């Protein structure tokens, strides 16, 4: 089982409850704005503590309230592409990209800097500071940073929202390669039906 998630959390006066188990390599989270998609990813990444339940991904239990298991985020190695980018403002694009790569154990460094940079079309940005990037440029750097960190699984929160069609296509191909060649499980949040149908083996509807 790639994914076995059953958690709930109280946020802004509402209960957000998510439950799914699937063997698909890519699971898509779907649902209206504010329904709890980002909150779900945060619980899986270890950034928001669920009130109850358990999270098991690719055979490893990350959280289990009853068993008292709660791995630290850095132990989960989750490869989170945030909805709001979060590039480190004091580091160049290059240092942002290599931040997680330098921390990853050798055997998980499956992607090389120049390969990722080529796919994302950000060669010319390597020495820039994040503050000077356009919206789509920043989004691509954020994707690159996450992929280079050698994650055990990926959490992608609308990673392509501010990219044009041809860029989207290139990056989708990269994600597909990661899915197929490295068999890294992916949870993917998107509003784009086409994207979701192309990538995901399983669609979870939140409400």
């Amino acid at each position, binding site marked *: 089982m790639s994914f076995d998630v059953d958690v709930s959390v109280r946020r802004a006066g509402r209960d957000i409850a998510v439950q799914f188990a699937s063997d698909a390599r890519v699971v898509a989270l779907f649902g209206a704005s504010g329904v709890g998609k980002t909150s779900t990813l945060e619980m899986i990444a*270890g*950034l928001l503590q669920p009130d109850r339940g358990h999270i098991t991904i690719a055979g490893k239990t990350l959280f289990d309230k009853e068993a008292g298991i709660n791995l*630290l985020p850095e132990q*989960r190695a*989750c490869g989170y592409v945030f909805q709001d980018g979060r590039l480190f*403002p004091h580091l160049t694009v290059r240092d942002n990209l290599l931040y*997680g790569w330098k*921390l990853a154990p050798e055997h998980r460094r499956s992607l090389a800097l120049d390969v990722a940079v080529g796919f994302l079309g950000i060669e010319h940005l390597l020495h820039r500071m994040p503050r000077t990037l356009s919206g789509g440029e920043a989004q691509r750097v954020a994707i690159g940073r996450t992929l280079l*960190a050698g994650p055990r699984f990926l959490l992608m929160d609308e990673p392509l929202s501010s990219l044009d069609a041809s860029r989207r296509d290139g990056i989708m191909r990269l994600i597909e390669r990661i899915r197929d060649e490295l068999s890294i499980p992916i949870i993917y949040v998107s509003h784009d039906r086409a994207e979701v149908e192309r990538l995901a083996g399983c669609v979870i509807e939140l409400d």
Partner: protein
Amino acid sequence: MDFLSADEWAVVALSLKVSGVAIMLVLPVSFAIAWVLERTRLPGKIFLDALVHLPLVLPPVVTGWGLLLLFGNNGPAGRFLADMLGITLMFRWTGAALAAGVMALPLMVRAIRLSLEGIDQRFEVAARTLGASRWKTFRSITLPLAMPGVLAALVLGFARSIGEFGATITFVSNVPEETRTLPLAIYTALQVPGGESTVTRLALVSIALSLAALVASEWLVRRGRQGESGHVL
């Protein structure tokens, strides 16, 4: 140089040693205190906060007197340092450094705290998901983002300790070559009719030292901001 006599150069050198050591020792302490005040939920932390502010609120002679009671050869902390580490502070430059450090502490804590307060913690969270431990996150994200505050703390602390007088003279007296820093030398000159020219020269040296610290810090801040580019507005 002719501007200052050899004795006066010695005073300048002593001042630099005392302030430099004081600031370098107090910097990590300030950071730790600022961290506790800003990032933890310790129940009684308002008292820690108040304690840190004491050297600012109390007249310096009172702080010096307190240091004497605590760190004098007959004070509890003084005895401990002497017995355990073989360090004596009374009438020594080490004591002057302690006094300067204590007086600089509240300013340094506040500057660092203001910077910590301004850090967007989402960057720290992002670093954790990229595999950084708490400590690695601190070194690679928190500390560099707090750099403006750390530099401000260094400048404020250095200036404050270069100018420290009341606590020092009360605690470790005015011993040439040990505790007679610039302000104590200036004070001595002020007591003598006609000492104004000496006062002026030594004051100019103090100003030059702090100006140098200022320029260095501004340069570092600007270097840290390099590559940023903004809007016309």
